[in-house]
């Protein structure tokens, strides 16, 4: 018998919290992207847990699509980081203040 689903859900919630804290406090755009990956993985873990609990493969299919979107997001995001770095020689998000209102 597998462990109760609530354990995995709490683990996913804590992982999401760690990722969100890093996203809010870090300055480096690269580390912020890694924190977004942590949050996406927390959501994936929740989906798989509910797929197991409800015996529905739809949750796993959703995780598959989340992975594809995450791959596309990282590709474009890192392209933007490289383009910004070429212009400013820094990846710190604090220095990108031209669009400040």
């Amino acid at each position, binding site marked *: 018998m597998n462990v109760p689903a609530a354990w995995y859900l709490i683990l996913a919630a*804590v992982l999401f919290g760690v990722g969100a804290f890093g996203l809010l*406090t870090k300055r480096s755009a690269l580390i912020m992207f*890694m*924190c977004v*990956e942590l949050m996406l993985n927390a959501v994936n873990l929740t989906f798989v847990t509910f797929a197991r609990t409800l015996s529905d493969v739809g949750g*796993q299919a959703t995780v598959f699509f989340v992975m*594809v979107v995450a*791959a596309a997001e990282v*590709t474009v995001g890192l392209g933007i980081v*490289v383009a910004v770095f070429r212009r400013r020689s820094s990846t710190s998000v604090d220095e990108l203040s031209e669009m400040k209102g």
Partner: protein
Amino acid sequence: MLAATSPGAIVVFVAAAALILGGAVGVLTVKNPVHAALSLIMTLFGVAVAFVAQSADFLAAVQIIVYAGAIVVLFLFVIMFLGVDRRDSVRLDPLVGQRAFAAVGVLITVAGLITLMARSHWVTGALSVSTKGHALATGSQNVKQLGTAIFTTYLFAFEATAALLIIAVVGAVMLARRERVADPEEVDV
């Protein structure tokens, strides 16, 4: 609740949780971005362990191949390309109390999620209506079941992801491309 749980499942869960949380905390605490990427691999591996433990075998393989194999390598490429930057500024804190506010907000969010989970009864043990009573398959049957779902129920979404990936690749190439001056005479002017 614990009486029905086999000790092996608990060991697997504890190992996966240690990998996941250790890696996640590592991403936030280490100074060197390369080490942060390696900590990220640890977390992704732990999530893959949790996937296997919950009979999502195909997704565990994809998790290792795509996330740990491709996405983290892409991170490492960019880190190497830009040069390792260790200045992640604990001292300069332009927004006053940013860390404290972030910590409080995250704590409220996580506590809210856990409270919501504890007080509601989503996990009733009943099967989903859309499965028509079929249990979730494990092992190689899991690949078959997931493939059938993706190529029938979710076929349109699957085709849309193909377009999404092409657009992402073209966009990344356009963003990372170095601007080439077409006409050298214009530079002199």
